[in-house]
């Protein structure tokens, strides 16, 4: 069993007691609640503990001694009701204050306690005893308090009384107690002014407003999801088309390369001495290369981000920056406008800016038959792989790829 008393009630009791010039007594009002704690741990299946908690909310001091009992300790119910008025059902115990005495229930207190238990019908009536000890020269006074449960057996009688928030609240949390506010004034003021803050259901208005904002946001997010879904599908379709077109390009190039080779072979047959060693090696290389189509990407891999230079024979050379494909930009990077609350322009397309940027860069890039390259800015690898076969005629040059770069620098991706 645990007991707690609010700080203000405690100080009020102390105030009344310390100011009386004799012993002092009164009643404690409050409530008793049962707490059940369920403990679940690995070592045993949950056990539940029951704890009775007594909370003292208020007190009713008696104006004088013997106000509700006589010399023999018999209680007068009329007087008792007069003191308690209509709060009789809130009584959970009574208290007594005595100076310079022992912390033990006295004869009369025990007699009264028994009768109170019967009259009030509270089996676990508690008794709070204050004793006030002063030193001989009145320099130090100690207020000691003990809460008794006299209706239990002799060895289990004392309960510890805690006063919440009596301590260092900077290190402990400030506990809010469940003491109900019984002040009538407070209740009437709140009732009067409450309509400004509370709606008819008793819920604070602000809460509703915030909830509405939240719902709106949720709806928007759902809508955006739908749009993203759609745009993704569109993109997928376009990507497929791009891939198909690339395959066609590759095929065409392969055919044209074969034709050239045939023409050259035909030419070589007529003039075998004119062919240079590199060319023969080239042919053997090409032969090697051709025989293993899988080797093609391996040869060309170091070329990944810099494949456009292969076109240098066929296509006008561009600035190095134009050759290099743009890197995808992350959201919030300086290359992008920072995302505002309204992500996008309200039409659900969040990749607009990305696309815009990519198109900007692609402006520098040479136009190809594959003008769909712009959309595949993220797919650098794929692009380069598709472009590999077209570099076959320059395979000899590719034997030492590092020397082929126009600037001589290694294949470092363009910094943004």
């Amino acid at each position: 069993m645990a007991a707690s008393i609010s700080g203000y009630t405690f100080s009020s009791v102390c105030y009344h007691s310390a100011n009386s010039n004799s012993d002092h007594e009164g009643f404690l009002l409050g409530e008793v609640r049962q707490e059940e704690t369920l403990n679940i741990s690995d070592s045993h299946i949950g056990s539940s503990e029951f704890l009775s908690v007594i909370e003292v909310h208020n007190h009713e001091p008696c104006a004088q001694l013997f106000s509700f009992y006589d010399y023999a300790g018999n209680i007068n119910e009329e007087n008792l009701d007069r003191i308690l008025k209509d709060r009789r059902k809130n009584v959970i115990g009574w208290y007594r204050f005595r100076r310079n005495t022992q912390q033990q229930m006295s004869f009369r207190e025990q007699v009264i306690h028994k009768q109170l238990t019967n009259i009030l019908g509270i089996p676990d009536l508690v008794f709070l005893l204050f004793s006030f000890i002063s030193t001989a020269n009145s320099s130090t006074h100690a207020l000691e308090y003990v809460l008794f449960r006299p209706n239990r057996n002799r060895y289990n009688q004392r309960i510890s009384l805690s006063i919440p928030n009596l301590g260092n609240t900077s290190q402990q949390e400030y506990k809010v107690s469940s003491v109900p506010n019984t002040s009538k004034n407070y209740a009437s003021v709140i009732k009067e002014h409450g309509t400004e803050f509370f709606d008819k259901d008793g819920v604070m208005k602000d809460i509703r407003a915030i909830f509405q904002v939240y719902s709106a946001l949720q709806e928007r997010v759902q809508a955006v999801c739908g749009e993203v879904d759609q745009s993704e599908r569109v993109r997928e379709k376009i990507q497929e088309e791009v891939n198909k077109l690339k395959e066609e390009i590759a095929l065409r190039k392969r055919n044209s390369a074969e034709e050239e080779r045939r023409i050259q072979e035909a030419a070589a047959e007529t003039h075998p001495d004119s062919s240079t060693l590199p060319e023969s090696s080239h042919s053997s290389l090409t032969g090697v290369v051709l025989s293993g189509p899988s080797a093609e990407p391996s040869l060309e891999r170091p070329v990944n981000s810099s494949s456009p230079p292969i076109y240098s024979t066929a296509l006008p050379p561009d600035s190095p920056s134009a050759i290099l494909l743009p890197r995808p930009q992350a959201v919030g990077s300086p290359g992008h406008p920072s995302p505002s609350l309204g992500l996008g322009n309200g039409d659900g397309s969040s990749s607009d800016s990305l696309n815009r940027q990519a198109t900007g860069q692609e402006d520098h890039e040479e136009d190809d038959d594959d003008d769909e390259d712009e959309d595949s800015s993220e797919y650098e690898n794929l692009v380069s792989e598709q472009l590999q076969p077209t570099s076959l005629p320059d395979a000899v040059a590719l034997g030492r790829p590092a020397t082929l770069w126009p600037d001589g620098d290694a294949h470092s991706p363009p910094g943004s």
Partner: protein
Amino acid sequence: MNSLSPELALSRISPELRPLLCSIVRNGRVGLDSSSCLRITDLKSGCTSLMPGPCCDRFKLHIPYAGETLKWDIIFNARDPELPPDFIFGEDADFLPEPSELPNLVSWDSGKPECLLLLVKEMLQQYHQYQCQRLRDSSRLLFEYDSLLEDPNYGRNMEIYAGRKNSWTGEFSARFLLKLPVDFSNIPIYLLKDTALDPGEDVALLSVSFEDAEATQVFPKLYLSPSIEHALGGSSALHIPAFPSGGCLIDYVPQVCQLLTNKVQYVIQGYHKRREYIAAFLSHFGMGVVEYDAVGFTKLTLLLMWKDFCFLVHVDLPLYFPRDQPTLTFQSIYHFTSSGQLYSQVQKSYPYSPRWDGNEMAKRAKTYFKSFIPQFQEGAFANGKL
């Protein structure tokens, strides 16, 4: 905790409560052991420290009971002196008297100075009953109690203290304090008035401690009021027989009672016998008597002459005369010893019988003197110097 002298206690207590405390402190004798009276300690106040003057209204009262001392807190309120006090019964937390059986509490009258003392006495009665209830834990001791209760001699003058059960060994102990119904009224006054203390009531108390519930360890002790103890011859009078194992109080107590009574009788008889003896000597030796103890009849001095030889005879009568023989001291009036004293000779054994009456003793003494004196005279001349 020092007990306060009565005057000090009275000076510190609140004036309205003073009469109540007065009767406690001055006349406070409760219980069997009335030689030790109620003591007051720890006088404290229930008022604020700003209250001036004597305002103590609560104290601890020490009450002797069955060989123990009960320490009860009595709590008044100086601001409401007409209200009855409250009590805390110290270690006897289970003791709760029934208020309806305390008439002095129910109709408390603060104007009556002895009200508090009467209330304390009533509470003590309740306490006694409470202790007797505790005896029920041991059937053996309960039997002892019941058997004593039936005897009217002892039943009404009994205090029981049923000790706390020792929580480790589970031992139960009890102490019976009984007032022995021995009549001390015939003890000669001279024996009693020598004590420096206020004798109070002459009482003999027998305390029997049972250290266990089966009555295998029993320790009896006899307490006599100081004057009686002195009258009976000091602490040797307190030797009582050991408690017989397997015996019970209802047999033992009368035994002790009888023993004490016999001793008292002895003393009384001794007194009369001595008186008789002295009277006889007076009549026999007439003018030869120099002086004698006319109160206790314990001494007699004679001045006798035999063939022009004068000598003194001092007769010392012991307490348990006639069982014990009187001591005769012969003293020469002429001769001195080297230390400056008169030459004397002590005779403790001479023809004597306790069955002789006073006259007979006087006659025989005379005969003995005649036979002994020549011897003495020679000795005096030989050893003493004039």
